[in-house]
């Protein structure tokens, strides 16, 4: 089932186009990472999904509902946080969740379950203003979980957290995913996304540069690290190899992005060019490699991957 379907979504602030005709879809059960540098349009996009920001163009379907009234009804199946955790500072964690439960018309027993799930049960009576940032983030996730939503949208949930806090959030997301919920999480923390998401979309300056399953994005190319006595000759020879999509040099050696994953063929070719390798190793391409390549103005021409 298609949980989110966005077509040509656009938002302009004066002359600035914050979101520029983006399209993407999220299917049921996916953990969808929405990646982009700060100011790339992630929060604006989520705001439009949640109907708190009015789009200037395009359309949004949620749970395959398009009509405005039905869309509002569909949003009742969504739990979400946007930017910072937004709660009443003078109310306790429990009372803040009571507000959420009343809004969602959910039995108040759900509050205890949500607090338990995020490990806040023992501090539920404390005022929100006295919570640490990590606790605030967890309370926000607890709020999003109330009502057992089918879709959980989390905007930068690990923002500002220490490693332990990030791990807690990651575990919570994995726990939600294990329950079969669809999760849409925006972040600029690539390592976090790589560890939790099944699918990603990368957005920059309001445009989606790439989207697809994580496996297809980072597994589509093979990276080889090469070293030889004459590095310059190695670089020139590697660049002339027909199977090389790109060639770079870094402190590890010559980095070759290969369309053909067969390293033996590459080695054979270089030998034929009089270059004998002292080091040849495949390197797994990380999401960070893909992200940096795309957002730092890399020239890889990639379409939407399945």
């Amino acid at each position, binding site marked *: 089932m298609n949980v989110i379907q966005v077509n040509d979504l656009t938002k302009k602030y004066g002359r600035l186009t914050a979101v520029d005709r983006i399209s993407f879809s999220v299917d049921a059960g996916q953990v969808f990472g929405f990646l982009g540098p700060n100011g790339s349009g992630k929060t604006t996009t989520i*705001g439009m999904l*949640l*109907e*708190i*920001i*009015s789009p200037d163009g395009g359309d949004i379907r949620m749970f395959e509902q398009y009509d405005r009234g039905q869309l*509002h009804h569909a*949003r*009742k199946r969504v*739990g*979400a*946080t*946007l*930017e*910072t955790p*937004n*709660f*009443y*500072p*003078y*109310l306790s964690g429990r*009372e803040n969740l*009571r*507000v*959420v439960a*009343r*809004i*969602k*018309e959910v039995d108040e027993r759900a509050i205890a379950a949500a607090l338990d799930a995020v490990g806040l049960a023992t501090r539920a009576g404390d005022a929100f203003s006295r919570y640490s940032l990590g606790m605030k983030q967890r309370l926000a996730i607890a*709020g999003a979980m109330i*009502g057992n939503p089918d879709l959980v949208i989390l905007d930068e949930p690990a923002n500002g957290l220490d490693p332990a806090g990030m791990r807690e959030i990651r575990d919570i997301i994995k726990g939600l995913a294990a329950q079969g919920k669809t999760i849409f999480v925006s972040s600029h923390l690539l390592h976090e996304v790589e560890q939790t998401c099944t699918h990603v979309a990368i957005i920059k300056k309001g445009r989606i540069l790439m989207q697809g399953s994580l496996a297809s994005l980072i597994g589509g190319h093979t990276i080889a690290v090469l070293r030889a006595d004459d590095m310059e000759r190695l670089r020139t020879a590697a660049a002339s190899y027909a199977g090389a999509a790109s060639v770079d040099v870094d402190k590890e050696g010559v980095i070759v992005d290969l369309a053909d994953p067969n390293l033996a063929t590459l080695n054979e070719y270089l030998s034929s060019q009089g270059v004998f390798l002292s080091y040849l190793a495949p390197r797994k391409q990380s999401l960070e490699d893909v992200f940096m390549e795309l957002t730092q103005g890399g020239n890889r021409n990639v379409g939407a991957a399945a």
Partner: protein
Amino acid sequence: MNIIRKLFSIEWIKIRRRSVFWVVVGVHIMLLAVSLGIQQYMHAVKPTNSPFQLPADWMILIQIGSQAGMLLLLIGVTLLIASETAWRTQRQNVIDGLSRGEYFAGKILIVLLLAGIFWVDIIVVGLIIAPFGGEGSLTWPVLSPIAQQMLPNVLLYLLALGVTAFMCGMLASTSGAALGMILAFVMIQPLISGVMIARGGYLPVISRYLPMDVFSNLVSVGSYDAERLALMNERILSRKMPALLSLHTSQLFTVIYIAVFIGFTWFIFRKRDL
């Protein structure tokens, strides 16, 4: 669940722990009690001073109650509503599932609640303090004809003030800005009125229809005492100023202002990104 009950229960969770709510209500009660209590005390120490009595002194009670309540109600409603924008809980409430209309209606309920509480304060404090004036200071039927006429208009006056504060609270992005707006609204209007009167032509007549002028007519003594109104108008007309509005006109324009303020606020809120 009935939607009004649902919205009220949400708002009640929010405001019952909010100190500003209890402070404005408490200060209003205290101001009323102290003002009337002083009158009773003065009578006790010097019996020639008249005590506060009901039903004779409804007009005094309403004057004190509405004047004491004006600033408190404006500040209370403004802060209770504007802080939701500053804390971004307005946005979160919508994310959690309230429609904009429901959120908006919830805030109207706060206006109704506070205006209602202030209105009840005036009556209850009056009824509690009056017997301290000695024998005969509270006699039945306690609701005189003039009280029956005034009390609904007092409620309308409080609602109009509440809606004005609601508008500022909803439109401003911070509590400070909202308070600035409402205080400017209250303080600048007499100046505008003065300028309009000084300019002459149709402007002095129009100045009588400015919101705060119209609202204050609802609790003005002259609106309920024909003789006093005639006297006031005689003095006003002798200074070549337009006569005061009649009570009916003031009621009508107050209702119009309430509708316009709510409609304008909704128009902006409905379209605004949260």
